[in-house]
């Protein structure tokens, strides 16, 4: 079942086109990561799904509801964590959790949620006295306190230290396990890789690619990295001439070859025929970072 459906979404601010003809579909229980450079239209897309911004054109449906026309019904289903949303300065963490829980029919235990996010010691602190990372975590807690069926999380782990990030990721994995549909805007490829079923790459207001993390990496022209220590010197030039090899480098006697999956076999074949045994051979995917950068760059070249 499709939980979130975005069709032909367009939103302009003055003469700036924030998003144009964006189509997205998120199945129930799926985690969709939204990647893209700053100002690409990620937050605008999320705000349209949340019903905070009305699109200039196109349709948005969340569980079949129009988030603006069916505001109340949609708000009961959706939990939203935004950038640049604050709280009353003198409200304590405990009071904020109680207040936001009161907006919902069947809220979670907010205190337990705060403790899960490492805010247990801060329950009676006022919002203004919290650090940036603590404000970020209370924002996440408030977005989830109503047991949303859909969670929209905009830059979930920005400003969090590694430990808090793990706590947040564990929590997201838990609600995902419970069947919550999640849209996660992120700049962190590690986060995208770990949490998301699929990734949508938004660039300059348009969807440049939608795929699984592995699929996105696979779209790269050179998705594989192999490294090895040859038992005796090997000609870098000869390796670079093999089909599908994009790049060969050697540092401290260790050779790195980047290329297609088939190139790996050709390199091994070449080494075998030359009688050079590769030791400490490692074959892995190029990182999602590399794939992301390659895709953003190629979409820039297409439109240039």
């Amino acid at each position, binding site marked *: *079942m499709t939980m979130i459906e975005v069709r032909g979404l367009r939103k302009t601010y003055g003469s700036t086109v924030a998003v144009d003809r964006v189509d997205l579909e998120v199945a*129930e*229980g799926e985690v969709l990561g939204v990647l893209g450079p700053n100002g690409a239209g990620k937050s605008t897309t999320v705000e349209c799904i*949340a019903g*905070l911004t009305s699109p200039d054109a196109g349709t948005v449906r969340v569980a079949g509801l129009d988030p603006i026309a069916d505001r*109340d019904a949609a*708000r*009961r289903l*959706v*939990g*939203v964590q*935004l950038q*640049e*949303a*604050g*709280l*009353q*300065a*003198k*409200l304590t963490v405990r*009071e904020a959790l*109680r*207040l*936001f*829980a*009161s*907006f*919902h*029919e*069947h*809220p*979670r*235990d*907010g205190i*337990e949620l705060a403790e899960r996010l490492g805010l247990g010691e801060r329950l009676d602190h006022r919002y203004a006295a919290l650090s940036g990372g603590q404000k970020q975590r209370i*924002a996440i807690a*408030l*977005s989830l306190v*109503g*047991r949303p*069926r859909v969670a929209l999380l905009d830059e979930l782990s920005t400003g969090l230290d590694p430990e808090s990030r793990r706590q947040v990721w564990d929590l997201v994995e838990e609600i995902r396990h*419970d*069947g*919550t549909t999640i849209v996660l805007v992120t700049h962190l490829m590690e986060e995208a890789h770990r949490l998301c079923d699929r990734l949508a790459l938004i660039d300059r207001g348009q969807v440049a690619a939608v795929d699984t993390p592995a699929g996105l990496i696979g779209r790269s022209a050179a998705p594989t990295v192999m490294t090895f220590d040859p038992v005796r010197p090997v000609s870098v030039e000869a390796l670079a001439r093999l089909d599908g090899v994009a790049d060969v480098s050697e540092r401290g006697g260790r050779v790195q070859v980047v290329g297609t999956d088939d190139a790996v076999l050709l390199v091994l074949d070449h080494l075998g025929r030359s009688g050079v045994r590769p030791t400490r051979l490692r074959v892995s995917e190029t990182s999602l970072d590399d794939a992301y950068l390659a895709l953003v760059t190629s979409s820039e070249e297409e439109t240039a």
Partner: protein
Amino acid sequence: MTAPTTPATTPRRGQGRPALALVATEARLLLREPGTLFWIIAFPAALLTVLFLIPSFREADADLGGLRVVDLYLPVAVILSALTAGVQTMPATLATYREQGVLKRIATTPARPWQLLAAQWVVHGVAVLAGSVLAVVLGVTAFGIDVPGSPAAYLLVLVLALLAMLSLGGVIAGVAPSTRIAATISTILYFPLMFTAGVWLPVQVMPGLLGTIVEATPLGAAARGLDAAAAGDWPDTQHLLVLVVWTVGLAALSARYFRWK
């Protein structure tokens, strides 16, 4: 699909009543603002006390129809409380809430940003009424001021003046793009409004055209209305009408300009 439709842990109290929860929260937050509480709740009584300590102000004056200056200042003190709440603290709070994204966050929930505006009206309104009751009780018991002759009319005029000031504050919060500009507008409006309330010169002794103009302003009309109610008369229809028109007009503008972004 295993999304829980029933709670796995015990639900907490107060479910599904955003408006009431917001009022309770805003009331608690107002209690954490000693400065605001002083100006709205304690100041009318404090002002009256200071005036009472000036000997000439407690002597009946034939020019004032046999009243004392301190008698004239009870309505003024009460109106000042409504003015401070409506034009200073309430719009400052709302502008801050918008600037800091509080209204935006509320907009993401089943609660609505205007419910926060309404909660602000309620808590400021209650604080003004508390300050007014305090001033009247002190004036009557300690300073020998007569109990308002027509309490119902007194309350009606006070509530209308309060609503007019809260609506004006709503307009300020709505049109001001930032907290600084909201504060500037509030300050610019504050002093003329104090004048029309009769802070420096009681409205009923303002001469000729000046008096006519001031009686067409919400606080000028409120001052005259409270004087009449204090003396046991029903306020002039003209004064009530002025107050109602201002209140309705400003409330409509405040609804028109209220925005959470």
